[in-house]
């Protein structure tokens, strides 16, 4: 109880006192600013890092997926080119190695063809066509005798370029094949065309050798986008490719495409230099990036957890900072108020002393003048209305005396006098002082309770002044309580510095405004009965003795005045 009261600061901070009170709004703004700034400063780099990491990782991963595909496609093109080049060279070699007559002889041609088939897989037939386009001899599974190719496009091509390789076509044979035709001009100026057909099942075999992962697809198309081999996903041979052809390039490229099924995929492709073919390999992207997605989710979780941790930390730190700030602001304000209060009272004290002193001189004159008047009236036995005049003069002298007692008390509030400091037993002084009031208390049926701590250390102080302090406070308490009320006096050994004397009453209490002004001279709530100097003098004395006065009051419930007295005499 006592400690609670003692812990309270008197007076409370007053916002209208011209001291800037820091409003809660300002703390909120400050908190918001700090949180925002710290969050931005810590999350922005994290975000940047995460983004860079994301894109770098994606690029690396994409590269790692694309590169094998690119290498594979390049290698496979090489295989194709070697395959085709070998066959073209073989045909070309035969065309130039044998004279026309040998080639025109079907038996010879058949023998050559058998050797070819033995050395190189894939040859289906072999035919000799003379410069007019007539089929001169043929070895193979079909009966093509008597045909003339003079009007066919490929024949014109071979006449101009000397070599021709067809796209895949079905032809008469009803299975996909490729034609290789080579023109040779003999020493006698006669020219002929040797034409071989290659079975494209060899193409399928080369593609199969790529051994693509499931979901992948590889195939050959021509430059017009017509499939030259079967594709797992995009149609049979000679179907049109369901997506547009990528730009021609003899290097192996990887591009992102959207398949007709709407999936993202990597398309790796390369154009053949010597033939009308484009090798393509398609790998669906999601399966390719599966690992990347799982990494991305990890990354996201870590990022979010990091952000959350930062926010929590920032929030906590900001809370601590703001709390410290607020506490120090409050301490500062309370110190300022305490100081202002003390200064106000001391300047009022000086003013009171000055006024009292100045008033004393005219009072002295009035006193003497009135005294002289009384003397003169007293000396004249025949003075008319003598008694009435004397009554007037006495009233003047009585008023002067009243004025004198007021000025004396005012001076008492401010004066600095040599006090007689001696060790005092506070409990004894209190008991003595309460003795003065016991009769009045009895008369009004007010109970005076005491709860005096035992073993209180003696306090170095001035008995008369301490008694005056206790008497003042007790008088006020007695004035405040109704008949039959209670006054309780409690003493306590508060801490190493102070002894506390607490005088509690259950009287009328004081409003905040009264508490604020109660130590000011001439402030009174007793109307005609008081001078308003009691508490100001009490305050002055307690302060001079190095103590404190604390007030806790609630209107209608009572007042507790706690006086702290120092255990050691203040320095100086």
């Amino acid at each position: 109880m006592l400690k609670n009261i003692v812990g309270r600061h008197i007076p409370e901070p007053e916002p209208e006192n011209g001291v800037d009170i820091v409003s809660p709004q300002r703390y909120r703004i400050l908190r918001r600013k700090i949180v925002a700034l710290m969050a931005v400063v810590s999350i922005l780099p994290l975000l940047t890092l995460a983004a860079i990491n994301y894109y770098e990782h994606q690029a690396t991963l994409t590269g790692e997926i694309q590169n094998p595909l690119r290498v594979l496609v390049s290698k496979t093109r090489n295989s194709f080119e070697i395959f085709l080049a070998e066959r073209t060279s073989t045909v070309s070699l035969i065309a130039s190695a044998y004279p026309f007559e040998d080639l025109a002889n079907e038996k010879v041609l058949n023998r050559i063809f058998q050797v070819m088939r033995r050395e190189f897989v894939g040859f289906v037939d072999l035919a000799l066509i003379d410069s007019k386009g007539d089929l001169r001899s043929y070895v193979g599974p079909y009966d093509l005798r008597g045909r003339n190719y003079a009007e066919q496009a490929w024949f014109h091509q071979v006449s101009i370029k000397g070599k021709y390789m067809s796209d895949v076509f079905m032809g008469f044979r009803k299975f996909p094949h490729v034609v290789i035709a080579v023109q040779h001009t003999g020493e006698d100026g006669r020219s002929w065309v040797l034409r071989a057909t290659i079975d494209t099942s060899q193409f399928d075999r080369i593609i199969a050798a790529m051994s693509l992962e499931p979901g992948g697809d590889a195939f050959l198309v021509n430059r017009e986008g017509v499939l030259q081999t079967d594709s797992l996903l995009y149609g049979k041979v000679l179907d049109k490719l369901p997506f547009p052809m990528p730009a021609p390039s003899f290097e192996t490229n990887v591009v992102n495409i959207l398949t007709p099924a709407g999936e993202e995929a990597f398309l790796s492709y390369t154009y053949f230099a010597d033939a009308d073919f484009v090798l393509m390999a398609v790998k669906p992207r999601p399966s390719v990036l599966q690992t990347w997605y799982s990494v991305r989710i990890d990354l996201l979780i870590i990022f979010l957890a990091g952000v959350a941790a930062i926010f929590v930390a920032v929030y906590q730190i900001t809370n601590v900072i703001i709390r410290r700030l607020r506490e120090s602001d409050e301490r500062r304000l309370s110190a300022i108020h305490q100081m202002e209060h003390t200064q106000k009272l001391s300047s009022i004290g000086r003013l009171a002393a000055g006024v009292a002193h100045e008033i004393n001189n005219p009072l002295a004159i009035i006193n003497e003048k009135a005294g002289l008047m009384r003397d003169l009236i007293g000396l004249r036995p025949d003075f008319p209305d003598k008694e009435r005049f004397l009554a007037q003069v006495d009233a003047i002298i009585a008023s002067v005396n009243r004025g004198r007692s007021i000025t004396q008390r005012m001076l008492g509030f401010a004066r600095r006098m040599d006090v007689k400091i001696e060790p005092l037993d506070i409990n004894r002084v209190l008991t003595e002082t309460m003795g003065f009031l016991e009769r009045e208390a009895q008369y009004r049926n007010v109970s005076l309770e005491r709860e005096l701590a035992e073993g209180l250390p003696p306090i170095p102080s001035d008995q008369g002044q301490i008694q005056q302090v206790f008497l003042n406070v007790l008088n006020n308490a007695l004035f405040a309580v109704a008949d039959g009320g209670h006054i309780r006096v409690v003493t306590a050994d508060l801490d190493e510095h102070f002894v506390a004397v607490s005088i509690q009453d259950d009287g009328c209490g004081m409003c905040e405004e009264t508490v604020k002004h109660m130590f000011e001279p001439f402030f009174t709530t007793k109307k005609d009965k008081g001078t308003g100097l009691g508490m100001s003098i009490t305050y002055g004395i307690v302060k001079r003795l190095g103590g404190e006065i604390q007030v806790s009051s609630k209107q209608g419930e009572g007042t507790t005045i706690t006086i702290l007295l120092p255990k050691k005499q203040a320095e100086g």
Partner: protein
Amino acid sequence: MDVKDWKILLVDDEVEFVSTLAERLELRGMSPRLAHDGESALKAVAQDPPQVMVLDVMMPGMKGLDVLRRVKESHPKVQVILLTGQGKTRDGIEGMKLGAFFYMMKPLDLDELIAKLGEAVAAGGGA
């Protein structure tokens, strides 16, 4: 000694106060002299030392305590009753230390003053 023979000097800058006080003392058979500042008080003491001097502490110019000090130096037998405006002030105590006979507060109680004047005259035993 009869009050008529008391040699009293009243020193106060408040003319109305001190003249009225003098008149009241005269009514009681005394014949005090007056001075209104420290200089003239010292002069008066030098011319004819009084038995008792009633001296106001707060005066413009020379302060009461300075007057007291100088009077006590030149005429130690002169008894001084100090008048203060501030009760038991430091000035009062200081005055007592300097050898003042007594100090009184304004406004005065005349009977008390007269009693103290008598005591002072008796203590001084003449100038």
